[in-house]
């Protein structure tokens, strides 16, 4: 793992150098291995899904119908994709008329979840709660057309909040996280941390 990590790091930093072209070539091969391993992992994932849901169908438990639906959809999509290709009208129909609208529906429901989360969170019980509530009201009024009708203060304050304190906070978190990534990489590079593999 250390050797592979070293190759990938050097591949990022080394410029055009014919003598060191092998590093770039090795990195390309390594990435290809990653794709192959992912493809096998997808197969294992599909087996996990089939095993769990076929057990549910065979036991005829209360969610057996949904498990059956999942297995049937999976088989239909695999057959259409493998036999006729992902550009075929049948595959395209299933994708555009079932999967895509279902995904859009889930995405759209976030708006309602935002309202319930906001209702719970914007309770002004302490100083932080008050700050969050006041900031949210200013930003919301700054973004909504009614804000500028009430006062020119809201759009200006909203833009300032987003571009100054918000950006500063976000950049601080990003820089801290970047250092965290490097420290984690060093621990893995030196073999000091294997907890992500379930080892201590």
């Amino acid at each position, binding site marked *: 793992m250390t050797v592979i990590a070293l190759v990938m790091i050097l591949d990022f930093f080394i410029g055009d150098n014919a003598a060191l072209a092998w590093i770039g070539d090795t990195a390309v091969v390594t990435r290809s291995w990653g794709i192959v391993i992912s493809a096998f992992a997808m197969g*294992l994932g599909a087996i996990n899904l089939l095993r769990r849901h076929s057990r549910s169908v065979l036991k005829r438990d209360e969610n057996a119908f949904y498990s059956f639906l999942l297995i049937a959809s999976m088989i239909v999509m695999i057959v259409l994709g493998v036999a006729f290709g992902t550009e075929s009208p049948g595959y395209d129909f299933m994708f555009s008329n079932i999967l895509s609208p279902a995904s859009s529906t889930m*995405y759209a429901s976030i708006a309602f979840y935002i309202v319930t989360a906001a209702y719970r*969170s914007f309770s002004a019980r302490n100083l932080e709660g008050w700050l969050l509530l006041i900031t949210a009201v200013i930003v919301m009024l700054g973004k909504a057309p009614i804000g500028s009708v009430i006062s020119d203060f809201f759009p200006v304050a909203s833009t300032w909040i987003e571009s100054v304190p918000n950006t500063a906070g976000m950049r601080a*978190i990003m820089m801290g996280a970047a250092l965290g990534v490097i420290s984690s990489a060093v621990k*893995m590079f030196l073999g000091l941390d294997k907890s992500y593999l379930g*080892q201590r």
Partner: protein
Amino acid sequence: MIAAGKQFSFSVLVLLFVLFVYCINSSRKGRVPSIRKLPALDAIEEAVGRATEMGRPVHFSPGIVELTHERAPQTLAGLSILSHVASLCAKYDTDLITTIMMPDVYVVAEDVVKQRFLAEGKSSQYRPDMVRFIGAEQFAYAAAAVGIMYREQVAANIMIGAWYAESLLLTEAGAQTGGIQITGSATVAQLPFLVVASDYCLIGEEIYAASAYLSRDPVELGVILGQDIAKAVTIGLIIAGAVFLAFGSEAIVNLVTM
């Protein structure tokens, strides 16, 4: 040899490596740094304990990006915490449901949970459906994970990793089941959702400190010290850059873009 525009970055990486190795050695010699309390990590045991008392499962998710993604370190941090959660679940005989979106993460997560149950001497308690692959489609995963949380009435929802728009769907489902929610991410755009919707939230670098915090391993704590020194130097560089620019000098800007 090093490409133009990357020389400063490469030098910093080498210096950081040397700093971390120095801090590790210093820690090994007995100068073990202390680490501040992270309530979110302390709350994991409480959450698993509560699930045990209620006889309900714990839900865990290590985020939705694959191991080859640029945000994969967050997934690895999530898997690290999964290792701790799986140990606790094995110890307390608590049901664990780990939902996974990406296939390569599924393979690793399954191994992590299996290994921890084995290490706790509870291999007979491990079931393959403790780690569930859902499917590599963002909102299909969200719909399935939300459904599992409602149907199986999870008593604790722990989500540590990289998130996108589905983060609020999952945390709101967790909130509505009434369980303890512990979340964490370094994906800045999703942090506001996680902070408002969960009981405890690990912000940014805290997820990477989890392994050191939970293990209290002197070597890992040494790396955290190195990280803090690097952070102080970065802050100094930012202040110096602002002062230099205010006086019309671009020396620091030229240095970091070298």
